[in-house]
């Protein structure tokens, strides 16, 4: 028991501290506080636990390979040689291709919805586009395998090879499953994020900016492209980073259309592999501590990368909306 000062002892009711606790009638208050605090602490605990588990469970491969793991390109479960490079390459290439397609497409749609469409039309179209974001990844994969890949094989790639076949990225045989197919599927998946956030940011640009530009004689398109979009650029970049983070972590759709071949090829038409895809495919069949540990280390790499990119995205969106972001 702690010793009290004379002043405190005089102030306590008979029965001491315990009595005053109950007498205050604050039991409900304190319990409510403790319960909600416990819930919040659990969230913090879970997040820390994720990082901790990834780090600890990958100790075997981290100790064996060190940083070379990130730069080795062999993936040989039989000989026990594991390297992350083919998967990092595949993840980056598919995400880059997805962004290349989705950014102009998404920004264009956002401009149309923010500047041109009447408010009601814009709202209902945005609702539809946000429904696209609700479609699960495995269904994108389903459509990818049975519709997109045959379509690319029959109609798109022959044309691409005719016109751009001299480029190294369009050389080699096309079996359907490839970086290219994965990139296209990913682009459709991340587009709704770019559209919805960019549209909000564009709408938030103050009216005076537009009116000032028009007042100086600029056309509507000049106003949009040279005034409104640059003003909203931070928020748009934030949406791009968010989309990127989503594309990097996407598992099912990519697994189903990328071809699942751990190799590094310059051609987009070649089959490849991504970090999430290899974990999804091989984790349940991985035998031996080193194999599983390598897969978990890949998960750690993915976690760290998405962590960094998500952080950047949040920073940009907050900077764009002047701290009033609701994302």
């Amino acid at each position: 028991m702690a010793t009290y000062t004379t002043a405190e002892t005089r102030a306590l009711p008979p029965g001491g501290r315990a009595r005053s606790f109950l007498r205050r009638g604050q039991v409900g208050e304190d319990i409510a506080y403790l319960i909600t605090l416990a819930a919040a602490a659990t969230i913090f605990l879970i997040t820390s636990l994720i990082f901790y588990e990834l780090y600890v469970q990958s100790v075997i491969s981290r100790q064996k390979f060190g940083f070379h793991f990130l730069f080795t390109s062999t993936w040989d479960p039989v000989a026990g040689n594991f390297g992350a490079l083919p998967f990092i390459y595949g993840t980056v290439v598919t995400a880059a291709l997805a962004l290349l397609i989705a950014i102009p497409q998404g920004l264009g749609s956002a401009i149309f919805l923010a500047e041109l469409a009447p408010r009601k039309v814009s709202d209902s179209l945005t609702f539809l586009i946000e429904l696209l974001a609700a479609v699960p990844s495995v269904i994108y994969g389903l459509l990818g395998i049975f519709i997109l890949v045959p379509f690319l094989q029959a109609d798109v790639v022959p044309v691409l090879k005719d016109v751009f076949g001299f480029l190294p990225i369009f050389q080699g045989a096309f079996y359907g499953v490839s970086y290219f197919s994965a990139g296209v599927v990913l682009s459709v998946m991340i587009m709704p994020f770019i559209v919805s956030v960019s549209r909000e940011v564009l709408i938030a640009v103050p009216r005076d900016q537009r009116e000032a530009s028009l007042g100086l004689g600029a056309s509507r398109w000049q106003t949009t492209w040279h005034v409104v979009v640059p003003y909203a650029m931070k928020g748009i970049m934030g949406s791009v980073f968010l989309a990127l983070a989503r594309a990097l972590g996407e598992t099912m759709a990519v697994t189903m259309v990328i071809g699942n071949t751990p190799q590094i090829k310059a051609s987009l038409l070649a089959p490849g592999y991504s970090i999430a895809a290899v974990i999804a495919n091989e984790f349940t069949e991985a035998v031996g501590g080193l194999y599983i540990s390598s897969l978990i280390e890949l998960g750690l790499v993915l976690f760290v990368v998405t962590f960094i990119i998500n952080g950047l995205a949040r920073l940009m969106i907050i900077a764009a909306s002047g701290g009033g972001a609701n994302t």
Partner: protein
Amino acid sequence: MNVLMFSLTGLCTLFTIGSLLFILGYLVTHGASALNWDFFSKLPVPVGEIGGGMANAIVGSAKVLVLATLIGVPIGFLGGVYLNEYAEAATAFVIRYATDLLNGVPSIVIGIVVYALVVRPMGHFSTVAGGVALGIMMIPISVRSTEEFLHAVPNSLREAAIALGASKWKTIASVVVPAAITGIVTGTMLDLARVAGETAPLLFTALGNQFWSPGWNHPSSTLPVMIFTYAVAPYDDWHRQAWAAGFVLLMFILAINITARFILSRASYAPRGMV
């Protein structure tokens, strides 16, 4: 120039909307035609045989989602209450950051962590592990939606309750939360819809099961995992069933989404910027 650029943007929008309509349309025509009563009532038949259904997957998905909601929503809701009503700035920042971090974790990584935390100690795959994985995924969205809708309740309500003599927790429980309840419930619905389609975390937690999964401690098949397994297999009948399952899953998710957003548009206190 104006006309050219703006019609280009219109084309972009058309393409985006078009892809959604195409996805919906194809799934409805192809998936609905593949659906039959067997799908909902029969177990999968051995590989290569025709027929059978996904009754165990539907029940398995339901079990996993119920467990996920029971785990994710209370933690998320109470965490959101803490963030909005009790926390000081520094603590709130840390918790919010952790929540955002958790939201950004790829679903496959959550699967790995739950494998290490639940499956390995238990010694086998189970519905419980699947429920825990999806529950963890439900927490961040639950926190964020609770916090936003609580924040949207005007302070005058809180002040009025306190002026009438209610204690803080009583205010929260009987005044603030009921005012925000529409939003919180719809947020939960949207959360559920998102998690219902997740496949990756279930791949090594609930794994799969050709038969009925008794209780909570056995591996269980779930609809998204079945779609994945059947789609990548070489059997035509399995492809047909994958389409049917995709149709059922998508209809379920879209129904929840549309209902939730519809209710939200009529909510009394909605934060600005929410649909």
